[in-house]
C-alpha cells in the first residue's frame, strides 16, 4: 500500500482545472458574448474609464445566443455532476 495515490492526484488536478477553472472561463466567455453589440459600445466610449455602468447586455443577437449556449452548458455540467454524486453515493445495498 503506497503513501500517495498518484493516479488519483493527477486526475484531481486535471479534472479540477477543467471543471474548476474551465467552467468559470466558459461563464466569462458567455459574459463577453453577452456584452457584444451597440449598447455597451456606446457606454464604453461615453466614459473614458469604463464608468460605473452596470450595462451587461450589448444587444447583439448572435452574442446572446452564444451566451445562452455557454450558460446552458454550465448548468448541464452542474446538474450532471450532482446526479453522478447522487448515484455514486447511493450504491445498491450490499448483502
Amino acid at each position, binding site marked *: 500500500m503506497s503513501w500517495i495515490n498518484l493516479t488519483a492526484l493527477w486526475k484531481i488536478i486535471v479534472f*479540477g482545472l477543467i471543471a474548476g477553472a474551465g*467552467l*468559470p472561463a466558459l461563464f466569462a466567455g458567455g459574459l463577453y458574448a*453577452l*456584452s457584444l453589440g451597440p449598447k455597451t459600445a456606446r457606454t464604453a466610449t461615453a466614459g473614458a474609464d*469604463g464608468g460605473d455602468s*452596470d450595462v*451587461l447586455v450589448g444587444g447583439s443577437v448572435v452574442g446572446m445566443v452564444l451566451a445562452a449556449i455557454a450558460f446552458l452548458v454550465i448548468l448541464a455540467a452542474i446538474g450532471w455532476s450532482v446526479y453522478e*454524486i447522487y448515484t455514486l453515493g447511493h450504491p445498491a445495498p450490499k448483502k
Partner: protein
Amino acid sequence: MSNDTVLVLVVITALAFDFTNGFHDTGNAMATSIATGALPPRVAVAISGVLNFVGAFLSLAVAATIASGLVATGDVTLTVVAAGLAGGIIWNLLTWLFGIPSSSSHALIGGVIGSTMAAAGGSAVLWHGLVSKVVLPAVLSPVIAALVAACGTWLLYRITRSLTEGGRRHGFRIGQIGSACVVSLAHGTNDAQKTMGVITLALIANGTLTAGSNAPVWVIVCCALAISIGTYLGGWRVIRTLGKGLVEIESPQGMAAESASAAVILLSSTFGYSLSTTHVATGSIIGTGLGKKGADVRWSVAGRMATAWVFTLPSAAIVGAISYGIAYGVGGTFGVILVLILLAALSGFIYWRSRATKVDHNNVNSEWTGGVSPDKVPVETAAA
C-alpha cells in the same frame, strides 16, 4: 454491551459537533459572496443552510471514512467516541473565537485519535491510514485548489477585459452566487456525513446496529438539521477572516475561488478522500490573490492559519485524551456525564468571551485592520 444513557449522550454530543461544524464552515462557501456584496450576509447564510441540508441527503459514500481506516474499530467504545467529540468541539470553538478557519474534520479526527490512544495505546491508531488519508491530502489539497483558482482568476480577467468595470462586477456576482451554492451543497455532502459516520459507529459499538450497516434515516435527518442550523447561525468571525482578511476580493475572484473549491472538494470525495473543505476554500482564496496582478495576499494572516492547521490534529487529540482520562478516572455513565458537563461549561465560557468583541452580520465586512475584531467606529457604515 449496551448502555442506552451513554448512547443518547453520545448522539447529542455528535449533533453538537455537527452544529459547530456548520457554524465554523459557513465561510468556506459564503465568505467571498458576502465580502464582494453579491449576497446580503443574512441571505447568504440562509441559502447556505438550506443547501447544506439538501447536500446531506445527496450521498452516503464517505459516511464511515472518519473512523474506519483511522483507528482500530474494535477499540472504539462509546466513552472513546464521547471524549473524541469533546476534543473536536473544544478546538472548533477556540479557533472560531480567534476567527481562524481551521478544519472541523481534523478537529474531529484528532479528538477521536487522542481518546483512542488514551484508551488503547498508540497501536490502536492506524498511522499509515492517518498519513495517507488525512495528513497528505491536507497538505496537497490547498495547493491544488490554489493552482486551479489562480488559473481561473487569470482566465476570467483575461476573457472579460473588454467589459466595463460595472458590467463585469454585475455579471460575475451572479456567477459567484451559483458557484457558492455548489460549494454549500458539497459541504453538506462531505461534512454532515462525517457526523453520520460517528453516530453510526456509536450505534454499532452499542450493539444497536449490526456492523456494516448504513446510517439510519433518523440519523441522516438529525445530522442534516444540525449542520444546516449551525450554518445558518453563521460563524461570522471566520467569515470575516476568509472574506476580508486574506485577500481583498472582487467578484470575478470570488467566482474563481468558489468554482475551484467546488471542483476540488467534489472530485476528491469521488476518489474517496474526505478532505477538509476549509483547507480547500482557503487555498482557493489565496490562489485568486496570486492569479490577479496587483492583488496582495496577506501572508501573515495565511501563516497564522497554517500554524493553526498544523496544531489542529495534536491539540484536538490532547483534549480528546484528557476527556477520556476524566471519563475513565471517574468511571461509568457518570464519568461521561461529567465530561459533557465540563464541555458545556467550557463552551459557554468561550461564547461569553466572544461577546466582548462581537462579529455579526452588521460588521462582518468592516475594513480589515489587522485582526478579526473590527474597530468600533465603522459599524454604522458597514451596516448600510
